[in-house]
């Protein structure tokens, strides 16, 4: 340590001498590079000020005492920055620890999501789900039953990060224990609502949309719990329609009932489920319009379902300067035969 400080002092003396000789930008650039070396060696700022004073005294033995004395005060003030600097180092360590904990937890969370998109003859399915931070409060699931019927869920926990993730694991285990209701969207939401109401803090709510698709009849039935409306695309008319489902968010009242809706899916039609992280993309101070989302979907709807959602995401994340303010989930199911 003492050795390092002495070497750094020598190096700094050289840089200062050269600089004072011809005051070039080159000299200042060297000073900046030198500051990186100081930080690498974890030299605190008060230590550096003391180095500067020592070098100054060496180079200018005739500097008035008062000027040298003024460095006592500079150094004393610098102690405050020194404390902040030390706190910074320990914060950084704690932060790295926390972040790596959260990395592990985020990985665990990934295992709560379906490992693969189910393979259904008549449907082309695509999904993208990106957390705003490392852990997500958006959840989605696909459930395939013995008759080839598909259940599709999307949920958004109000709140982000770690608490949302804990909540999401509950939703997942609760859905796993409700195999009977997989084809009855309304009944499924009613059951989930009871679990949420009992287990989750009053400040925590979950919005959800659940649908079931029967590939034999091409009927899609769905119910919603306060969730962001999706879209339904009619291929024959080349038109988008809002996919709304009235219903209170989960966890508010034990006795909520959920209306079941249904729609007939024709060849080329598609269903879009999304979370409000998609529609509440902020560009500058404005939210993006739902009509702009539709334009983006149109732009890429000649592609496969998976490519479609990925391209829409890419455009939206770029629009926001690569910072997501909310978890982002976009799902599409298109009937292609």
């Amino acid at each position: 340590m003492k050795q390092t400080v002495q070497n750094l002092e020598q190096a700094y003396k050289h840089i200062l001498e050269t600089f004072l000789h011809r005051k070039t930008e080159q000299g200042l650039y060297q000073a900046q590079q030198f500051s990186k070396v100081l930080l690498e060696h974890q030299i605190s700022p008060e230590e550096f000020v003391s180095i500067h004073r020592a070098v100054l005294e060496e180079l200018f033995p005739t500097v008035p005492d008062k000027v040298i004395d003024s460095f006592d005060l500079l150094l004393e003030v610098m102690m405050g920055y020194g404390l902040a600097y030390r706190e910074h180092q320990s914060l950084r360590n704690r932060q790295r620890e926390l972040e790596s904990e959260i990395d592990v937890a985020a990985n665990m969370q990934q295992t709560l999501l379906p490992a693969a998109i189910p393979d259904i003859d008549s449907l082309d399915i695509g999904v993208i789900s990106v957390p705003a931070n490392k852990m997500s409060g958006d959840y989605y699931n696909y459930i395939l039953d013995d008759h080839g019927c598909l259940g599709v869920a999307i949920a958004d926990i109000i709140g982000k990060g770690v608490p949302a993730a804990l909540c999401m694991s509950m939703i997942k285990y609760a859905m796993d224990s409700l195999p009977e209701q997989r084809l009855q969207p309304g009944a499924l939401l009613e059951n989930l609502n009871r679990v949420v109401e009992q287990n989750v803090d009053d400040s925590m709510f979950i919005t959800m949309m659940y649908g079931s698709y029967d590939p034999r009849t091409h009927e899609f039935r769905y119910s919603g719990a306060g969730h962001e409306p999706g879209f339904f695309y009619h291929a024959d008319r080349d038109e988008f329609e809002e996919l709304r489902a009235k219903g209170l968010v989960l966890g508010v009242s034990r006795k909520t009932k959920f209306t079941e809706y249904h729609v007939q899916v024709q060849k080329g039609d598609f269903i879009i489920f999304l979370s409000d992280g998609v529609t509440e993309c902020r560009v500058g101070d404005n939210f993006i319009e739902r009509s702009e989302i539709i334009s983006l979907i149109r732009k890429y709807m000649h592609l496969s379902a998976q490519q479609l959602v990925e391209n829409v995401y890419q455009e939206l994340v770029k629009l926001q300067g690569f910072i997501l303010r909310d978890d982002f989930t976009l799902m599409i199911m298109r009937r292609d035969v």
Partner: protein
Amino acid sequence: METQSCVEVKNEWGIVAARQAGRTLSKEIGFGSVDQARITTAISELARNIYLYAKPGEICLEVVEKTTKTGLKKGIQIVARDRGPGIPDIRQVMIDGFTTSGGMGAGLPGVKRLMDEFTIDSKTGEGTTVTATKWLR
């Protein structure tokens, strides 16, 4: 003074030249010595990124203006442009970047904090463009 002036960065001399250009221009615009140092540091970090990971590239400087409630405001705009490998995950770089961690884009969060406005565009295999602006207070 409305035209852009660019400095090519392919070695450390380029970094120094870009710094010098930035310091001179920011002084002309009327920035104080601390802000001059900040702008120069931002340029230095951007130029060093090019030099280390994506040379050759260029740093272009321009005087910019905008009208605000209190009248016309002047500022300096830095554009750093390269045809290097690009940054595969910009979100990663902008979220976590620690000043002392290495690698392409390591200094970007610092640059963002030194300047008032900051945008980045990058495509893997095609290069990166960073635009940063500081306004006179």
